[in-house]
């Protein structure tokens, strides 16, 4: 195996044994030129072989354009997680989730499998009042130890509220997009292309920024 050595594979296998239901992993890539598309396919093939609860589906953003459209996929590589009934959970990983980002990838897989964590009551109540569509972008680098925490929080918010969609974006692969969103520190969080903050901040901060959109 290229990405997962025996030790990591065993650790992964133990962690993923905590998955409740099956999860469908849709991987959108395209023909060359595509930075990290091939690596992403290889990595996920290895990753999915660790657990029989992971169903991998390789798609092409052009030939499977309808599906890409269903899940708002515009970048490649992009990874969409669907639950066992193939419901779109509004969370994506744009770029390869290796480096530190393997941790947010695992955390989101767990959540989508039904092994969910509980939000504090006050956070949960505020979250239920987010009644307008929200798009959360979390820009990361793979060498950043603080980034997975921010991705996990954004994804958790999306999983708990149908109005919220959350995307991890790997800043080096999507350099132009990072330029467009003025990313010069990570994790950088952008909400509805308008409100932004930097750092692995609390749920409270995510909510305060989203609540600005409700006024």
């Amino acid at each position: 195996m290229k990405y997962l050595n025996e030790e990591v594979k065993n650790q992964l296998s133990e962690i993923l044994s905590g998955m409740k239901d099956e999860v469908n992993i849709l991987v959108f890539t395209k023909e060359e030129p595509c930075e990290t598309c091939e690596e992403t396919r290889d990595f996920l093939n290895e990753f999915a072989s660790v657990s029989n609860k992971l169903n991998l589906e390789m798609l092409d953003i052009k030939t499977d354009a309808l599906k890409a459209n269903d899940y708002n996929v515009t970048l490649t590589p992009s990874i969409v997680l669907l639950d066992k009934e193939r419901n779109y959970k509004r969370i994506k990983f744009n770029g390869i989730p290796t480096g530190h980002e393997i941790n947010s990838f695992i955390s989101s897989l767990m959540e989508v499998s039904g092994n969910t964590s509980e939000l504090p009551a006050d956070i949960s109540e505020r979250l239920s009042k987010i009644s307008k569509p929200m798009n959360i972008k979390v820009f990361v680098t793979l060498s950043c130890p603080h980034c997975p925490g921010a991705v996990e929080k954004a994804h958790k918010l999306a999983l708990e509220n149908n109005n919220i969609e959350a995307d991890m974006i790997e800043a080096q692969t999507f350099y132009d997009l990072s330029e467009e969103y003025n990313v010069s520190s990570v994790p950088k969080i952008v909400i509805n292309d308008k409100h932004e903050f930097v750092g692995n901040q609390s749920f409270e901060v995510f909510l305060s920024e989203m609540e600005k959109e409700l006024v």
Partner: protein
Amino acid sequence: MSLEINLNVSNKNELDMEKVYDILIIGGGPAGLNAALYSKRKGLDVGIISYDLGGQVMDTSSVENYLGFPSISGEGLMKKFIDHVNILNVPYLEYVHVKDIKKSDLIEIHLEDGNTFKSKSIIIATGSKPRKIGIPGELEYSNKGVCYCAICDGPLFADEEVVVAGGGNSAVEAAIDLSKIAKKVTLVHRSNFRADKILVDQLLTLDNVQIKPETQILEVIGDKFMKGLIVKDRLGNREYTIEAAGLFVEIGYLPNSDPFKNILALNSKGEIIVDKYGRTNIDGIFAAGDVTDTPYKQIIMSAGDGAKCALSANEYINTLK
């Protein structure tokens, strides 16, 4: 791009709010982890409350001065620490902030999320955070070029010109790391280097690194983004501009002692004052590592401090029986 796998393996033991612990450790860096190891080996009931397990060392790309490890990544070293502590099944709580502590018969640790934990003694090992320079433009261009984590944000400055501020090991290491990514790195320091000679020698071999000692940064300038710095050559008494897209601030650290300042004695730098046993001014409260007034902030010293505090706390608990 980091295609290696940095998997975090956490244990499933959780802290219990109903219980009274022998020792609760606040902080999951080298000091806190080693305190946990020593406490547990004494047979004490111990737990760790932390924000990020591993602490600041996680942000260090390479550690070359920890005995037994000629060269290891900061994260790699901390993984070894965490794995070692995990063997002993020490419960921990991550991603929480301590609000304050109260001492009565027991010591209560109040978290910002409203939860409270109780213990007979505690070891504070909350470490430190990067110090800011405190110049015009620094705050304005923070996250718009001004950065405090070189390994996190370095990849965003590929083929750009950047400046590193500072003269210690952290600054020189950041400059060496950035030289592999950026087009040009200028290392600016107010006086002269206090970094280890072995690191400075390595730095001097790099073609795209320029060194400016005796130079003071006066202001960060730019428009929407940082564009450069106004600096002053202290010997020639001359001001000039260095063009740069990024400034990496590595000028030292400030202790994370805020939650404890109301009940513990701090020195003028905000560090918790401890004696040679790691005792603070309050019985049953110990402190270890970068948050204390112990000189020289080094991984191995913090780890040693943690061991010392665990042994001191053990003796303290024995006097309660």
